[in-house]
């Protein structure tokens, strides 16, 4: 998918707030999502537990990008879980290819073609000590590892009804290939790891 209108204009620090007016002037695109394929799940347990179970129905995600100095800011907005979190919380992520020509993000990367993942997670009351955003490398559905010294990724979120707005911010080099992907996990449906929704193709960002 090529989204010609998606650019990453320079903005002020206030754009770290997903409700900042600065985002009103920045073009956004609705990115459709699909379930991460069940056959792509890497272990037999996950395949056995989720075959025939509905998941990955989130999206589309309204995506807008901006820059603030050496930081890339991405605002994601989508309809999240309507019920309060139980065992699992809503989450969203940005995927970036590490090399040009990396296969589409629908499997969240592969062992041969790792992708960068910036992940935001809603937190339970007991989880307030945890960071809301993590800088990860993904080599398959749910195969996430922290990136040592990968540069700080931060997130701020707001919620209106069941609609989340989240700004993820991290090192601008992540966008070096000019492509980005989106993933969403519906906490109320126990979605996590490789069980979630992801865009089927990379979204191209105009230089």
């Amino acid at each position: 998918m090529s989204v010609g209108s998606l650019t990453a204009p320079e903005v002020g620090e206030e754009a770290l707030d997903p409700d900042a007016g600065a985002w009103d002037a920045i073009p956004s695109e609705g990115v459709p999502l699909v379930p991460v394929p069940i056959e792509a799940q890497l272990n037999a347990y996950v395949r056995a537990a989720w075959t025939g179970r509905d998941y990955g129905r989130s999206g589309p995600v309204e995506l807008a990008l901006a820059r603030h100095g050496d930081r890339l800011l991405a605002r994601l907005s989508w309809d999240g879980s309507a019920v309060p979190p139980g065992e699992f919380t809503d989450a969203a992520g940005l995927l970036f290819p590490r090399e040009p020509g990396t296969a589409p993000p629908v499997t969240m990367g592969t062992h041969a073609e790792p992708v960068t993942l910036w992940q935001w997670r809603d937190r339970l009351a007991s989880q307030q000590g945890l960071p809301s955003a993590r800088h990860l490398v993904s080599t398959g559905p749910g195969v996430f590892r922290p990136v040592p010294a990968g540069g700080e990724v931060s997130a701020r979120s707001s919620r209106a009804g069941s609609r989340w707005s989240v700004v993820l911010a991290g090192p601008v080099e992540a966008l070096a290939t000019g492509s980005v992907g989106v993933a969403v996990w519906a906490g109320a449906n126990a979605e996590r790891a490789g069980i979630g929704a992801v865009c089927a193709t990379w979204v191209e960002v105009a230089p």
Partner: protein
Amino acid sequence: MRGTGRPVIERTRMGEYGANGDTGEGAGAPGQVAMVFDLNKCMGCQTCSVACKVLWTREEGEDHQWWMSVNTQPGLGTPKGWEEMGGGWLDGQPVPGHQPGRAEFGGGWDFNYQEVFYGGTGSSTHLRPIDHGDGNTRWGMNWDEDQGGGEYPNSYYFYLPRLCNHCTHPVCVSACPSGAMYKRHEDGVVLRDESACQGARFCMEACPYKKIYFNYARNVAQHCIMCFPRLEAGVAPACARQCPGRLVFVGSADDDESPIHKLVHQWEVALPLHPEFGTGPNIFYVPPLSPSRLHEDLSIDEETPRIPPEYLESLFGPKVHAALDTMRRELARVRAGGQSELLDTLIVYHWNDLFGRYTTDPATLDRSPGRVPVRFGRSPSTPTTS
């Protein structure tokens, strides 16, 4: 409840298997550490549970965690109704399971101390757990203690200590998408690299024994580590060493001379719990004998044990009947004035006979911070004695 010096469990050594798709089939560790619990001697005192709690689960997010727990059987146990939650292997395929949540484990309560002791209402307010709305005040680790089964005068119960079985085919390892879980080749202990754990909790679903807990504060799953830092120093796990009933054997089932080998393989009186779950547990139990039932007129029914054999079969499989027969036969031999190596083994005349090669007294170890290997703990803290 902070700063107990519990190690951050990280993958520190080679020689393990794990990661996606690895069922562990055929990968049983040659030096697999095993344990045998003689249920005829367990009095449900929970000393083992507390020994483990004090040593391993005193930090943030671990209040509700009891890696070692003792429940009354029959009962719903912990987590509530765990035997019906699925998981394990069937015909070589993993069985989908339910992930027990906070309410099903229960426990880890906060109490209204402030209200009772300082709120000026101490004479009218009762001490009670505070309900945070997550259901955890309606169950707990030992909630149905001593309820048991049967009808008076034939009511019955016994105690069942449970911990991770460090299974030969650990379905938890296979279910972990991030490859954080692994089974060590050198002793078969099943561990989790907490720095790689993403909190996905598929391990909790897949484990049929429901012996994995979730640390909500740190977003990692946690379970019994078989006291591996103690094993490496020749010290038996805390639950075994602290048991006042002297009923917990530790060692290798492969060592022909070990009590574990004799109880499991030679006399076949020590059996795994729910063998039908298919994971090949390495924790074994000598099933409980029981007194005879009473007839309605309160005369003794010599033919029928108080604990229904079919109930024991539902826990330990069909081999339980032969195991109980062997025990009864050996008891009869001793009552007739004979000798029984089996009973002598189960009596445990010498405490250290329980522990195989793990007889080192932890009090004799050099425990100065500089002597604690890095992988054992957060330097410069010192492990707790137990």
